[in-house]
Each structure stands twice: as C-alpha cells, then as structure tokens.
C-alpha cells in the first residue's frame, strides 16, 4: 500500500511549511518513528516522522519548496517492509537501494538527484573559454590562459569565472564583499585602480543604496501575527501595581506567577475563540514575549499556576537559548510583555495569536509598575476584565 506523508499543521497560524532538508532518499527503509524530513513552519523547525514502516517510494517536494499544509510530500510503500527488514539487518545501506532504482523513472523531476548525478560525472566539454568569457576578458585585460595555468579559473572558462576575476583584479576582498552584499554593478566604478572598501562605502552612501536582507521565517510570522492582531476589537485598561522584588527572582517570573493564579479565578482569560465556539482550558498557559538572538518569540509557559517562582525563573533563563519546538510556542490563552528592564515607563502591546489579552509591563518605580492590559473584547467584557485585573493586583502583592 502507498502511504502519503503530508505536510503537517504544526501551529494554528501555519498554512505553508518549507522543506529544509530531506533526511531520507528514495529507496530508503524507514521505521514508523524514523525522521524523514526537516520542515520549517512559521514558528520553528521540526523533524517529521514517517508515520508508517516501509520504503520511501517518492519524494514529492524539493528542498526550499514551500508546501501548503495537508499536501503530500512523500510516498512510502508499506508493502515492501517485510522483505526489507530481513535484508536491512545485516547490511543496512547497500541493500535497500538496489530495488527501487527502477521506480525512479516514474518519479517527477528531482532536481537535486539530477544535479548530483551529473556533477559527479566528468565534464564533456573542452576548449579554453566561451565566446562571452573571451570577450569580457579582453575588455578587462584578463589573461585567461595564464589564470588557467595557475588553475585559478576552470577550463573552459565561463562568464562567471571572468566576472570573479574582474572583481578580484579591481577590488580588495573587503570591497568585493560589499559589491556582493549590495548587489552593485562593477561598471559603476572607474576600473583603473584597485578599489578599496572605503570607496565602495562612499558610493553606497552617496547613492543611498539599501542593503537587502531577506526576512527570516520568524520575522514573517511576527508580521503576520501583529497584522492579524490589529484587526481584533480590543480595549485597554491602564493600571498601577505594587510589587516587592524578591532576591534572585526575575520580576517577570513574579508577574507570570500572579497572572497564572488570577487566571485560575477568571475562566475567560483561559479561553480562546474557535469558529462560533469558546474553548475554555483548565491550565494557565501564558505566552511571554522573549527577545532571543534569533528573533522575537512568544514562548509559552505551561501550567504556570502549579509552578514555583524558582521553576518559572529557571524557565525564563532556559527559554532564551533553548532550541524551540512547536510545544514551546503554542497553547497559550493570555500573554505578557515586559519592557521594564529597558527603562520604558508605560506602553501597550498587541495580543499574541488567539490569546484573550496581553499585559504590557513598564519599569519599576519605588515598588510600583505601570501596566496596560489589551483585552480582546470578543472574549472579555469590561466588567470581566476589571475583575481579572483586580484579582491580579491582589495576587501580585503575595508573590
């Protein structure tokens, strides 16, 4: 039987997943829990398991491709498993590859496969350089023969080889890097001397040329999240809270704990909307805005009501650097964001994902913190929110 491995839904907001790396190839034997592919969602990179035992028959998506969720990305032949187990025990690598070779004919074009095949075969072309390469070399005074003798460029040489040499000839390595980074045209420079990075930087500044950075999947996810958030009908509650800082414990940990306890008394803050239903969860799962080296993430602390201050404190430390999984990023119903440590007095935050609301915390001033709650009006009304905020104010004095 053929089993289709599909692009899974790794998070509520995910509609596409990017293939990062195939961990198997056509003909490989896989167990039910063998990882077959690495997939990048809008939130994190995950390994996807085969789901069944069998032999990989087809790979339907190539590396770098963005595939909509629920779309098949590979086919596993479950019929072949019995034979394969016996064979694969003594010699795991060589055996499974022989049979499925024939099936390759049926597969759709697999670019990586073709390239690997061809690149490893010897080059069939000869001659010194292409006409275009010769023309450019002559234009820029580059001696193809000499460079080929020194093995600095391949034989035959093509335009890209000459282009590299032109840059090498007229630009310092640092300047060459800038040319690449800013996608500059070398013909905009007077090529009669070795050009240093200062000259390139000057050119960039004078012409106000932007450096182009591709957005990371995380950044794209953040943009999507905040754009969705702005569409929500919200209202704001401005409050001041009194808090006693505990030695060795982060203020954020104290806030999380108090919020978790207040959430236990206010079911609507543990609720999310789904279609025309309200889902109320028992746990106080709180999304916390975490500024990591790889971007801003709304990391979720689970069952914060049952955790001690020390445990929450430890979680806050770990989450800064640990490899995030989907578990770390989903399941919350309320959020917090703290800019107090950056000296910000007061601010408002945008609600994360499906959360019922978010608290934005400013800096501590003589035991007092200014906080703004943004509340999703579809889930909580003013009175309900006021009760929740008052409960939180009480709890924060006790933690």
């Amino acid at each position, binding site marked *: 039987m053929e089993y289709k491995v599909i692009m899974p839904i790794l998070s509520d907001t995910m509609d596409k997943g990017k293939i990062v790396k195939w961990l198997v190839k056509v003909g490989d034997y896989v167990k039910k829990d063998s990882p077959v592919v690495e997939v990048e969602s809008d939130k994190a990179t995950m390994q996807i398991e085969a789901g069944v035992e069998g032999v990989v028959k087809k790979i339907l998506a190539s590396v770098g491709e963005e595939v909509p969720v629920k779309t098949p990305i590979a086919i596993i032949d479950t019929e072949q498993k019995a034979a394969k187990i016996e064979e694969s025990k003594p010699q795991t690598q060589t055996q499974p590859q022989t049979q499925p070779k024939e099936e390759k004919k049926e597969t759709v074009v697999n670019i990586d496969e073709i390239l690997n095949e061809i690149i490893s075969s010897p080059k069939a*072309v000869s001659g010194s350089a292409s*006409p275009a390469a010769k023309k450019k070399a002559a234009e820029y005074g580059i001696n193809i023969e000499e460079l080929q003798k020194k093995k600095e460029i391949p034989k035959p040489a*093509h335009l890209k080889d000459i282009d590299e040499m032109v840059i090498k000839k007229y630009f310092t390595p640092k300047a060459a890097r800038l040319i690449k980074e800013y996608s500059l045209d070398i013909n905009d420079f007077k090529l009669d001397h070795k050009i240093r990075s200062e000259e390139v930087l000057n050119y960039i500044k004078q012409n106000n040329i932007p450096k182009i950075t591709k957005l990371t999947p995380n950044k794209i996810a953040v943009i999507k999240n905040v754009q969705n958030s702005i569409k929500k009908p919200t209202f704001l509650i401005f409050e001041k809270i009194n808090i006693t800082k505990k030695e060795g414990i982060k203020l954020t940990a104290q806030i999380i704990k108090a919020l978790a306890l207040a959430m236990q008394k206010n079911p609507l803050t543990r609720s999310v909307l789904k279609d025309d239903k309200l889902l109320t969860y028992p746990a106080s799962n709180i999304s916390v805005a975490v500024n990591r080296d790889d971007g801003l993430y709304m990391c979720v602390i689970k069952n914060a009501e049952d955790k001690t201050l020390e445990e929450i404190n430890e979680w806050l430390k770990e989450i800064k650097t640990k490899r995030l999984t989907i578990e770390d990023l989903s399941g919350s119903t309320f959020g917090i964001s703290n800019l107090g440590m950056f000296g910000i007095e007061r601010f408002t935050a945008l609600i994360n994902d499906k959360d019922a609301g978010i608290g934005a915390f400013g800096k501590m001033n003589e035991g007092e913190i200014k906080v703004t709650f943004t509340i999703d009006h579809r889930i909580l009304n003013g009175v309900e929110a006021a009760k929740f905020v008052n409960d939180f104010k009480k709890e924060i004095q006790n933690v």
Partner: protein
Amino acid sequence: MLYREALNKAIDESMAADESVVILGEDVGRYGGSYRVSEGLFSKYGEKRVIDTPIAELSIVGNAIGMAIAGLRPIAEIMTANFSLLAMDQIINHAAKFRYMSGGKMTIPLTIRMPGGVSRQLAAQHSENYETLYSSIPGLIVLTASNATYAYYGLKEAVFLNDPVVFLEHELLYPMDMEFKEIKNFDPFKAEIVKEGKDLTIITYLKMRYDVLEAEKELKKAGIDAEIIDLNSLRPLDIETIANSIKKTKKCVIVEEDHKTGGMGAEIAAQIQEHCFYDLDVPVLRIAGEDVPIPYNRKLELLSIPTPDKIVKKILEWKAKNGI
C-alpha cells in the same frame, strides 16, 4: 476565450469587413470545420463565400490561388498539415512564386490555415507541422499561433497581407480556454517575450510554449530565472528580439516539437551564432522531437517529443555539463 473561438472571430470579422474574403476547404461549410473553427459562418455568409470542397488538397489550394489572382482574399483550410503535402506544388511552385514570376504584376493574397503537431495518438501520418519546410521557401510567410490573442490578431493580419501566408495552428490548442489581451499596433512578425528573466533565454513556439511554461516553474525552484520567447512568426524570424535577449542572458535554449535534424531550431541556432556569437557563454541547446516518425502508442508518442520534465532535465544536464 477558446483558441478556436479566436480564430472564428478573426475570420468572421474579416468576412464582415471585406466582401472579397472567402473561405474554402473540406467540411468548412455545413459541418462548421473539423475543429469547429468556421462554425456559424456558412449560415451567415452563404455557400458562395463559405465553400465546401472535395477531398483534394491540390485543388483547394489551386482554386484559392486562382481566386487570389482574380482579386479575392481566400482563406484555404487544410484539414491537417500532413495533407498539405498533396498541395505542395501549388503552394511552393505557384503561390510562393507568382509575384516574382510576374515581375510584381500579380499578388497572391492567400492564407492557408493548417492544424498540425503531435496531438493524441494520431500517429505518424497526422502529427506533423512541416514548419521547417515552409519556412525554407522564399515567397511564403509562415506564422504560428500559440494563443488566442495571436490567433485573432495574427489571422486578421494574414488575411489582409498581399502575400501568401501559411498559418500554422496546433490541434491540442483548439479547445483550450486562454486569456485574450487587447493589443494596439499589433505586429504579426514580432516575437513575444512571454516572461522576462535574466539567467537564460528559452525560445519556443506553438504548443511547446505551454510545456516550457510548465518547465519554468521547476527551473525557478532550481534558482534559474528563465526568459521565455514565443516566436509567433517563423518566416520572417524576429532575430532582433532573440539577439537582444541573448545579449542579456548569454545562454540560449530552443524548444521545438518538430524533429531535431534540420528542424527550426537548427536554423535559429545558426542565426544566433551569426548575430551574437560573442555574447554566448555556452553552446546553444536544442530540445526537440526525436528523429523518428511519431509513434501511435501514447507512451512512445510522449517519449518522442519534449515534455516539461524532459525540458527541465535537459536544461539542468546542459548547465552541469558545461560548468555554468
């Protein structure tokens, strides 16, 4: 708009605009044309202007030439391009040459429409277009319509040109629903840049346009930004558009359904090296039909012509082989 509807519209409007426009061919009248191109014209214009002929290609073209000499603008339909071989003497020896033989006193404002190409299992004797053959004859104009827009504007232009035009259509295109674009200052001899790109130029025409567009999606995944040119006119050939593109991309691939040896691609490749040899960074690649009579068996039929996956594979192989 359906491809066949675009052709029908072009003929209908030409006939309405000019009484000298007539059509003739096998089953073009009462039956409405074997691919429904002349549907509705018989009842609208009558049997004197929409003429059903016997199954005799030589006489269809011969009669049409006579009409053209006498002042009409006939559109002759040959049921499938393979049958035009029977009319070859009239097309090559007469239509293409009268203007020259008469010192310019006679003109032949004749359009010969021919469906052709590899369709679905029509086998060796019904699967060709002979575009290379006609494109090698001085005195003929050869146009190929790959889409509804060109089918409409191109055919209208062809009807009102004073020289004989071989107007090639592809059998698989007739039922296709296509986007129709309005064009001002239409030039039938100008190639269309279907998609702009910077990494390589793919030249194609007729039905292969769609196979190339399909292949382009895969090429994009491999990081190749291809420019696609649809020739529209094979004679004259718009070498200017081709050369300008190659000046930019430095690499050229020609995709044609016709047999490779002595095919259109051979002529185009020769003209490319005449016009822009020093812009080429790699030898021109021809992806063409195999040098075999087109097989009847569907699997063999597909093996004998370029398909999207074959186009992708050949381009990637060619790039790797040449080290680019």
